[in-house]
């Protein structure tokens, strides 16, 4: 008898996805006859699916997609395990299979304990019901008994800080209050295994800290925690072991530290995918985007923080007026970090004469943390309020090393402290206000101020 509480053997999960011709603009000018033919074929296929009791997939062409492929892992009782991986690597699917929400296509999972999963905060909250009623509803949905909820009711309310609004329908709550209440219920679950998806990325910083603290308590209380997050700092403080998923496979398992390192390496490896299709917009087409080196203006994939960032964009236009060129800087997890717009910020539009153009865009120096970045590039019609042509990750680049002022500390994106070095020159200025324990006098402590603001 092993002390493994979760054993996963060769787990696979397949989804069927449909493709439609024409939605990507390639086949958009087809004759009515073709469309009719396609509709008839689709109808025939769906009818056959219905008769055989199979799933109906929208689209012209059905493709198999393996969200998980031959995953094997073991999680021991009392362990706190983090699962990391790129978006679409299969993390959420794995959690869904573990929490019995969806059935695997192959392999098996053995669970030796009561599992509670938290894939979303506030599952099943009903907007018409009051806060009090929703606590009972949500608690029951998460698997608590009414007695358990009643016992913890006051604790939950205090944790969420919504005492005054208990008898108000939650549809009148602010979104912050809503999320706080939802998390408070979830935080008081006491299962043997707790499965948590990226749910901590909600609420304000103060509340997030509180949630992390609560999660840490759970992990230290000897219960098993399986945790998915892109927040590497949270991952480090909560988990002891890390598992890296990539394209549906478990590619690494080890200490959290090692796993994060492996993940970072994975991110810096070129993303192998289909060659970019030659798509285009209605009026414009972004042909090519490159990052240029500072001195010789040769294409590069490296950026040195603190130097100007030079982009070269090749673009076709049919001469429509009022078009803007826009850039989005994203980090390795595809979070948007920054935005630039030729029209919104500089009043500049694309040339109004048909032709192919090359634009050199020089951005002010950025103090980026070490890691991988990309630019999404788009053209837009500000008046029409939509993208004309948008290319995601049009150019990718890397920052090898980041030590903004020459201090021997390499600031990395994967630390979870963000992507920008914030410099304070010459540093913080400290002015002594008095003895630290003295709360009277000029210097009010934060606690005092909070007291003044709170109603009672």
């Amino acid at each position: 008898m092993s002390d493994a509480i979760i054993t996963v053997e060769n787990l696979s999960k397949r989804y069927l996805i449909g493709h439609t011709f024409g939605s990507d603009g390639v086949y958009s000018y087809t004759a009515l006859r073709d469309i009719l033919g396609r509709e008839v074929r689709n109808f025939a296929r769906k009818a056959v699916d219905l008769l055989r009791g199979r799933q109906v997939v929208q689209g012209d062409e059905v493709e198999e997609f393996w969200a998980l492929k031959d995953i094997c892992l073991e999680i021991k009782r009392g362990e706190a395990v983090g699962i990391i991986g790129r978006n679409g690597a299969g993390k959420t699917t794995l959690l869904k299979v573990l929490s019995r929400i969806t059935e695997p296509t192959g392999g098996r999972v053995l669970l030796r304990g009561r599992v509670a999963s938290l894939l979303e905060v506030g599952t099943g909250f009903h907007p018409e019901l009051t806060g009090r009623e929703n606590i009972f509803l949500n608690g029951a949905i998460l698997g608590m008994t009414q007695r358990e909820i009643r016992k913890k009711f006051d604790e939950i309310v205090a944790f969420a800080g919504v005492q005054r609004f208990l008898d108000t329908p939650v549809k009148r709550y602010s979104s912050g209050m809503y999320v706080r209440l939802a998390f408070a219920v979830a935080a008081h679950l006491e299962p043997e295994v707790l499965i948590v998806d990226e749910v901590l990325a909600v609420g304000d910083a103060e509340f997030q800290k509180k949630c992390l603290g609560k999660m840490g308590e759970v992990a230290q209380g000897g219960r098993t925690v399986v945790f998915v997050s892109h927040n590497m700092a949270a991952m480090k403080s909560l988990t002891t072991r890390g598992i890296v998923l990539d394209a549906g496979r478990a590619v690494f398992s080890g200490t959290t530290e090692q796993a994060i390192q492996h993940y970072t390496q994975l991110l810096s490896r070129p993303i192998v995918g289909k060659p970019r299709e030659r798509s285009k917009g209605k009026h414009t087409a972004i042909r090519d985007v490159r990052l240029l080196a500072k001195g010789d203006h040769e294409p590069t994939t490296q950026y040195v923080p603190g130097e100007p960032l030079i982009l070269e964009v090749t673009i076709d236009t049919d001469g429509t007026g009022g078009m803007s060129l826009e850039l989005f800087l994203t980090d390795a997890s595809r979070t948007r970090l920054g935005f630039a717009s030729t029209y919104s910020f500089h009043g500049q539009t694309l040339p109004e004469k048909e032709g192919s153009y090359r634009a050199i865009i020089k951005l002010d120096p950025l103090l980026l943390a070490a890691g991988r970045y990309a630019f999404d590039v788009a053209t837009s019609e500000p008046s029409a309020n939509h993208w004309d042509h948008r290319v995601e990750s049009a150019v990718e680049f890397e920052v090898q090393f980041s030590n903004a002022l020459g201090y021997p500390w390499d600031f990395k994106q994967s630390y979870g402290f963000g992507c920008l070095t914030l410099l304070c020159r010459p540093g913080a200025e400290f002015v002594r206000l008095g003895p630290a324990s003295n709360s009277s006098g000029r210097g009010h402590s934060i606690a005092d101020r909070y007291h003044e603001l709170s109603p009672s």
Partner: protein
Amino acid sequence: MSELIVIEPGRRERHYWLDLWRYRELFRVLAWRDLSVRYKQTVIGMLWALIRPFMTMVIFTIVFGRIAQLPTVGTAPYPLMVFAGILPWTFFSNGLSEASFSLINSANLISKIYFPRLIVPTATVVVALVDFLVSFCMLLLLMAWYQFMPDWRILVLPAFVLLAFCASVGPALWMTALNVKYRDFRYIIPFIVQFGLYISPVGFSSSVVPEQWRLLYSLNPIVGVIDGFRWCILGGQSELYAPGLVISIAVTAFFLWFGIHQFRKMEKSFADLV
């Protein structure tokens, strides 16, 4: 507690019925939620459960009793006979149509949390049952108005309420599962309900059906339920057609088994399809 749970493709859980029992609290809470939300932000609230069947009764009495001149059973007043039919029919049709959409409406629940999915549609049928009980008060008022006294047979009514419950749950589960997979049923279900109203003896007595067709007519499980209701409520005025009742019970039992079977077969893929 170290009970072993195995997750495998195609595996029926051994603990399914035990799980269902374990989640009874959720069942209660969901039924309570549906009930308390049902008449929120309406002006007359629960009265809707009285007004709707009452209006239907008035119209059916005029159309079938006055215009078509169909006979009532024995000496019972026509409106009373119609109402005794409307009660189980409303329960059946509400249960069926609301349960069929229940899983789609709680898609967010299904894709985020595990529980035996059987709970959701069944809880909806329970809500329809509460509506039925409210409408039943209307029946009592009507009986007082017509000074109609029921006899001992009314004591058998709970058995027929149970039959009505089973008759709605079976097809409802099947429709629910199909509706998750093939959204065509979104359009088929209202049609079934509308159609069923006319092929079931709601506005008229089943005794108007020619004798040689009655056995066939009883294949519709609601026929047995409505006849049973009339037999209980109208006292000796309506006789019970025994072979028909047996067939109705058999069909109901079959649909209950079939509904649960089909539902469980598709249950595990709901989260991917909904």
